[in-house]
C-alpha cells in the first residue's frame, strides 16, 4: 500500500547522487595527495631524508604532537576545541619530572598523566555545566595551568640525566624502534578505533554535527563532550611525560601554549572540520606529519627556517578555505 502511493523519483537523481558521493570520497582522500607528493619530492632532492634514521627521528619527535592531535580530533569532531593542551603538556612534563627526581618512575608517570586527565575533566565540566564557549574556557585554563607549571619548577630547569629508569619509558628500543613511537602508535590506533567503531564515537559525530538533534535522539551530549576533553587532557599529559622521558629534562615555558596551535594546524590541515561533526583520526596523523615533513625538508635542504612558518601559516589558511568552500557546495 505504502509503496504504491509513494511518488516515483526521477531516475536521474540516482546517478547524480552517486556521482556526488564519488566526489565526496575523492575530496576525503585529498590530503594524501600533497603528502605523498611532498614525500616523493623530498626523497628525490635530499639523500639523507629517506634514511631510516631520519624517518624514525621525525616520528620520535612528533610522537607527542601526534598523540595530542589524535585526542584533539575527537574534541573537534564533538564540537569543541581545546587550547589548553600545550599548557597541560608542559604541566605534566614538569610534574612528572618533579616526582621523578625523588620518587619512583612509575609514580611520576602516573601523576603526570593523571594531572592531565584531571585538568581535562575540569575543562569538560566547566564548559558543559556553565555553558561557556570551549575556546575561551580552555584558553583561560591554559593561562592558569601555565602559571601552575612555574609554581612547580620555581623557574628552574629540572634535569633528570641520572634518572635512567624514567628515561626508559620513551627511550627503550623495541624491534629497532623507540618506545616513544610504539606508545604513539598504540594511542593513535586506540583513539582511531574509539572514534570509528564505538557508540561513543558515533555520539561524538552526532554531538558535533547537530547537538540539539543528538540530545533529542537520547544522546548524552554533555557527557560525550566531557569525555572528549578528559581524553584530550590525558593525551596531553601522556605527551608531556613522553617528551620529558625523551629529553630527560623539563622546564615551564610560555612557548608550550603554541603547541596547541601546532596541533590544531595539523588536525585542520588533515581535513577535520573546525565546525565539528566531520573528520577522522588518520587525517590528523597525516596532517601533523605533513607539517613535520615541511620542517624537516627545510632543514635538510638548508632553507631559511623563517619561510617554514610562513609556509605552514599559508597551508593552514588553504586547508580551512578548502573546507569552507566544500561545505558551501555540499
Amino acid at each position, binding site marked *: *500500500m505504502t509503496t504504491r502511493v*509513494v511518488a516515483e523519483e526521477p531516475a*536521474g537523481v540516482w546517478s547524480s547522487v552517486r556521482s556526488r558521493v564519488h566526489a565526496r570520497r575523492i575530496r576525503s582522500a585529498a590530503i594524501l595527495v600533497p603528502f605523498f607528493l611532498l614525500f616523493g619530492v623530498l626523497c628525490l632532492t635530499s639523500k639523507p631524508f629517506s634514511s631510516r634514521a631520519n624517518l624514525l627521528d621525525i616520528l620520535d619527535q612528533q610522537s607527542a604532537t601526534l598523540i595530542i592531535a589524535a585526542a584533539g580530533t575527537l574534541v573537534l569532531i564533538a564540537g569543541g576545541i581545546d587550547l589548553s593542551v600545550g599548557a597541560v603538556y608542559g604541566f605534566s612534563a614538569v610534574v612528572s619530572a618533579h616526582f621523578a627526581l625523588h620518587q619512583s618512575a612509575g609514580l611520576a608517570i602516573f601523576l603526570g598523566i593523571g594531572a592531565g586527565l584531571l585538568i581535562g575533566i575540569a575543562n569538560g565540566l566547566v564548559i558543559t555545566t556553565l555553558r561557556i564557549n570551549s575556546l575561551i574556557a580552555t584558553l583561560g585554563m591554559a593561562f592558569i595551568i601555565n602559571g601552575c607549571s612555574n609554581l612547580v619548577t620555581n623557574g628552574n630547569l629540572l634535569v633528570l640525566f641520572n634518572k635512567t629508569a624514567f628515561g626508559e619509558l620513551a627511550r627503550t628500543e623495541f624491534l629497532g624502534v623507540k618506545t616513544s613511537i610504539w606508545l604513539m602508535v598504540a594511542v593513535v590506533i586506540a583513539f582511531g578505533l574509539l572514534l570509528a567503531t564505538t557508540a561513543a564515537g558515533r555520539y561524538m*559525530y*552526532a554531538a558535533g554535527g547537530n547537538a540539539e*538533534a543528538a540530545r533529542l*535522539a*537520547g544522546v548524552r551530549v554533555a557527557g560525550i563532550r566531557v569525555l572528549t576533553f578528559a581524553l584530550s587532557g590525558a593525551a596531553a599529559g601522556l605527551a608531556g611525560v613522553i617528551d620529558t622521558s625523551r629529553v630527560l629534562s623539563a622546564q615551564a615555558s610560555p612557548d608550550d601554549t603554541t603547541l596547541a596551535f601546532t596541533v590544531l594546524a595539523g588536525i585542520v590541515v588533515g581535513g577535520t572540520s573546525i565546525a565539528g*561533526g566531520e573528520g577522522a583520526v588518520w587525517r590528523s596523523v597525516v596532517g601533523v606529519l605533513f607539517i613535520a615533513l615541511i620542517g624537516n625538508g627545510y632543514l635538510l635542504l638548508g632553507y631559511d627556517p623563517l619561510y617554514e612558518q610562513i609556509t605552514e601559516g599559508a597551508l593552514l589558511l588553504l586547508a580551512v578555505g578548502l573546507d569552507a568552500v566544500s561545505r558551501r557546495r555540499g
Partner: protein
Amino acid sequence: MSASAGPAYLELLDVAKHFGGVQALDRVSLTVHKGSVHALVGENGAGKSTLGRIVAGVLGADGGRVILDGTDVTFRSPREALEHGVAAISQEPSVVPRLTVAENVFLGVEPTEGGFIRKRPLRNAYAKLAADAGFDLPGGMPAGRLRTSEQQKVEILRALSRDARLIVMDEPTAALGSHEARQLYTIIRGLAASGKTIILISHFLREVLELADTVTVLRDGRLVKTSPTAAETDASLVEAMLGRPLTATFPPRSLPPAGAPVLMRARDLRAAGVEGVGFDLRAGEILGLAGLVGAGRTELARAIFGAAKVESGEVVLLESVRLGRSPRRSLSAGLAMIPESRKDDGLIFGRSTIENATISRLDALTTFGVVRRRRERRAATAVLERCGVRGAGYSAPVAQLSGGNQQKVLLARTLLCEPRVVIADEPTRGVDVGAKRAIYDFLTSLAADGLGVILISSELEEVIGLSHRVLVMRRGRITSELEGEAITEAAILGASFAEGTG
C-alpha cells in the same frame, strides 16, 4: 482579482538546468502575466524551486531564454535580478535580529552621510513604504522580536523598497500558522492588485487554488500543464503532479477499542509556554493537538518528552514512569518524539541514513561499546524499508535525501525505539503529497497496533482527517476537547481564537 490576460511580464523559453547527471529542468516554457499570481506546483524534486531560483538569479540556466518585460535577461546574482526589479522571498526569512525593522528593510541602501546612517530620513522612508504597502509593522522594533510571518513582511518591504515588480515566493507559508498564512494571502492579493507580479511556489494546493490566477504543474523537471486556476481542483492538480490519481487522502480510521487502557496521563503540567495542562491518552488513540502557532503545542510536547524543563505538575506513562525528565529517559521509558524541525532538531545531516536511524538504539546494537556494523545495517534496513525510505543508498549522508524521505528516516528511528507512545510534531511539514500519505499510513498503523499517538499539526484537515480526539490549545491551556463528529474545522478554529476561555 486581476485578469491573467494582462500583458506578458515574464517569459521562459526552453529553460533547462541540470545538476551533475540530473535534468532538473527539461526545456520548460511558460508565460507569466503582469499583475497576476502564478503558482508553481509539483512534488519535491519536480523542479519548481529550481525554476524560481533561476528567475531570481540565484541559479543560472544551462539553456533557454528568460525574457523579462520584453528583453532577454541573464542574471548572474540575486543582486543583479533585484536591479531589474525581480526579488525573492524565502521560506525562512533572513533578517538581522539586532537591527530594527526599518534598518533591516533598507539594509545596504541606507541613506547615509559621510558613512553614518541618517536616522530620520530612514524612519520617514520606512513610514511611507509601510503605509503604501498597508503594513502596520513598527519600524523601530528589533527584527529579532518579530514572528516569522512578520519577518516575511520585512522581506516583502525590502523587495518593495527596491522597487521590485516581480516577486518570487518559495513556500512562503510553510513556516506559518493558518492565521498568519491568511494575513499573507491578503498581502499577496494586494500586491497583485497594485500591479506587481507574483510567482508562488507552494506545496499547499488549497492555497494555490485560492490565491493563484494561473497554475503551472511540473513533474520530473518537465512542464505538465499551465492552466487557469479556476479550471483546476485539488484532485486534478494532484493527478497532474503524480501522473496518476491519488486515492483517498487519509487512511481509514480504526477506532480504539472501548475501554482501552490509559497509556499516558498528564496533570496540571506547567512549563515555559504551558499553563497547566491535563489529559489522558489511551492505547490505540490518535490525539490531535490543534491551535495557533504559539498556542503552546510544541512547548507541551517538548515538556512531556523532557526536552524542555517541566516547572510543575506531572506526566506519567503506564501509571508508574514519570516523564518530562530528559529525552534519553523518555526514550527508554517508551515515549518517542518526532520533532517539529527535522533539520534543526531531528537529523544529523552529515551522517549516513543508517546512523541517523539507529542513533537512539545504538546501545542495543553494540558489544562492549563497539557497534556491530552488520547487525546495525540489518536492523536499520528493515525499518527504513518498512517506512518506504528511498534514495541514494542507506550509507550516503541523510542530507542527500528528499524532504519526504528524510522525514521517513525519523519514522524509522521511532520504530526502532519500540515506543508505547509517539508524539509527532508537524510530521508532514515540507513533505510532498506522496510522502504525506505514507506518513498518515504510518501514524494510523501505530494506533492500530495499540500505541498512543499525539499529533500536532497546523494543517487542520490533517488533524481532522486523522485524530480520534482533538484538544485545542490557546495561550498554553487546553480550551476545548472535541471527539468524533464534533471534530470540525469550525469547532477547532472557534476554540483556537476564543477569547476568555480556559
